[in-house]
C-alpha cells in the first residue's frame, strides 16, 4: 500500500519543482555573470596586448641595434688575430672536456654523437664569435623567434575563441531583457511549464 497518497505525491512534486526552478534561474543568472567576467577579462587582455606590443617594439629595436653593432664589428679586420687564435686553441679542449663531462653526468644518453657534433662546431667557430658574445646574440635571436611563435599561436587561438564568443554574446538572450516578467521566468513553476519548454513537434501538432 502506498505510504503517501497521490495528492501528497503531487504536492511533494510541486515543492521539489519549485526548488529546481530556483536552481535553473540561478544557473541562468550565473551564466550572465560569467559572461560579464569574460568581457572584463577580455578588456584586460586587450590592454595587456597593447603593452605587449610596445614592449615588443622596444625589444626589437634593441635587437636590431645589437645586430648592427655586430655587423659593424665583424667588418673590422681581425686585429688581435694571433693572440685570439692562441687562446682559442687552448680554450677549445677545456670547453669540450667541461661540456662533455657535464653531458655524460647529467644528460646521460648520446654522448658520442654530441661529442662529435661539438668538436665540429668548435673547429668551425671563430674566437671572434666568442669575443663578440655571439652566443648571447644567438640566444636572443632564438628567444625572439620563440616569443613570436608563442604570441602568434595565442593570438590565433584567441581570435577564433573571440569570434565564437562574440556571436554567442550577441544573442538576444544576453542583449535583451524580456519585457514581460511573467514570461521572462521560464521556470515560473508551479502553475504551468512555459510553452517553449515543450518540444516544437508537440506544439505544431
Amino acid at each position, binding site marked *: 500500500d502506498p505510504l503517501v497518497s497521490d495528492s501528497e505525491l503531487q504536492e511533494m512534486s510541486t515543492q521539489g519543482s519549485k526548488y*529546481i526552478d530556483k536552481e535553473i534561474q540561478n*544557473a541562468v543568472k*550565473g551564466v550572465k555573470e560569467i559572461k560579464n567576467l569574460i568581457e572584463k577579462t577580455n578588456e584586460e587582455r586587450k590592454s595587456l596586448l597593447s603593452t605587449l606590443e610596445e614592449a615588443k617594439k622596444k625589444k626589437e629595436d634593441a635587437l636590431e641595434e645589437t645586430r648592427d653593432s655586430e655587423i659593424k664589428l665583424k667588418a673590422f679586420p681581425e686585429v688581435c688575430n694571433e693572440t685570439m687564435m692562441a687562446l682559442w686553441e687552448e680554450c677549445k679542449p677545456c670547453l669540450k672536456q667541461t661540456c662533455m663531462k657535464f653531458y655524460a653526468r*647529467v644528460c646521460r644518453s648520446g654522448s658520442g654523437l654530441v661529442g662529435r657534433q661539438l668538436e665540429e662546431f668548435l673547429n668551425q667557430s671563430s674566437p671572434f664569435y666568442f669575443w663578440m658574445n655571439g652566443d648571447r*646574440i644567438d640566444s636572443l635571436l632564438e628567444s*625572439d623567434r620563440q616569443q613570436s611563435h608563442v604570441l602568434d599561436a*595565442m593570438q590565433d587561438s584567441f581570435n577564433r575563441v573571440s569570434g565564437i564568443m562574440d556571436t554567442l554574446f550577441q544573442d538576444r538572450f544576453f542583449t535583451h531583457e524580456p519585457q514581460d516578467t511573467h514570461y521572462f521566468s521560464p521556470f515560473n513553476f508551479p502553475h504551468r511549464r512555459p510553452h517553449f519548454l515543450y518540444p516544437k513537434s508537440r506544439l505544431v501538432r
Partner: protein
Amino acid sequence: SILPLSPYGPLGFHDVFQSFLEMIHQAQQAMDPQFHRPAFQPLDMDFMRGGADNRTVCKEIRHNSTGCLRMKDQCEKCKEILSVDCSTNNPAQAQLRQELNDSLQVAELLTQRYNDLLQSYQRKMLSTSSLLEQLNDQFSWVSQLANLTQGEDPAYLHVSTVTTRTPDSDTPSQVTEVVVKLFDSDPITVVMPGEFPKDNPKFMDTVAEKALQEYRRKKRE
C-alpha cells in the same frame, strides 16, 4: 514564431541553449590545445642568463652545441678571450665592441621584460579558458533541459514513491527513500534520515537538492 510567448524571441529555450552549448564547446576546443603544446610554454629566460635547469641545458646541447659555450666561465683560457683588449691596435673597434656589449645588455633586459609580459598575457588567456570551463559546467545541465522534457507532465521534478524503512541490521536507524525523476531522467533514489519528517517544509528542498546533485554528477560523467 511558433513560440510566441517565449521571452527569448522567435527561438525557443531549446534552440537558444542548445546553440550555447555547442558554441561553448567550440570555444573551449579552440582555446585548449594551445595550452597543451610544448611550444606554448613561455621561454625559460634563466637559460639565456646561464642559470637554466639541467634538462634545458641537455636539450640545448643536443640541439645546438652553442649550449656548451655557456660553460666558458669554467675555462680560464676562454675567459681570457673575452678580456682581450684590441684597443691599442684599433680604438674604434674597442669603442664598437663596447657599444655592442651595451646594446646586448639592453636587449637581454628588454627580452626578459617582454617574456614577463608574455607570461601575464598567457595567464589572462588561461583565465578566459577557465571561465569557459565554468560556463560549460554551470550551464550544460540547463541546456540539456529541453531535450529531457518530452513528457506532458508540467513538473520539473516528479516524486514517484516514498518508502519508510524501519531500523534493521542493514540500516540501524529509520530512513525515508524518495524516488524522483528530474525532467525525464531515469529514476533517482534519495535517502533521507528518519529524523527529517516529510512534512517538514525543507524536506522536499533537500530531496530536490540531492537529486539535482546526482543528476548533474551523471551529466558530467
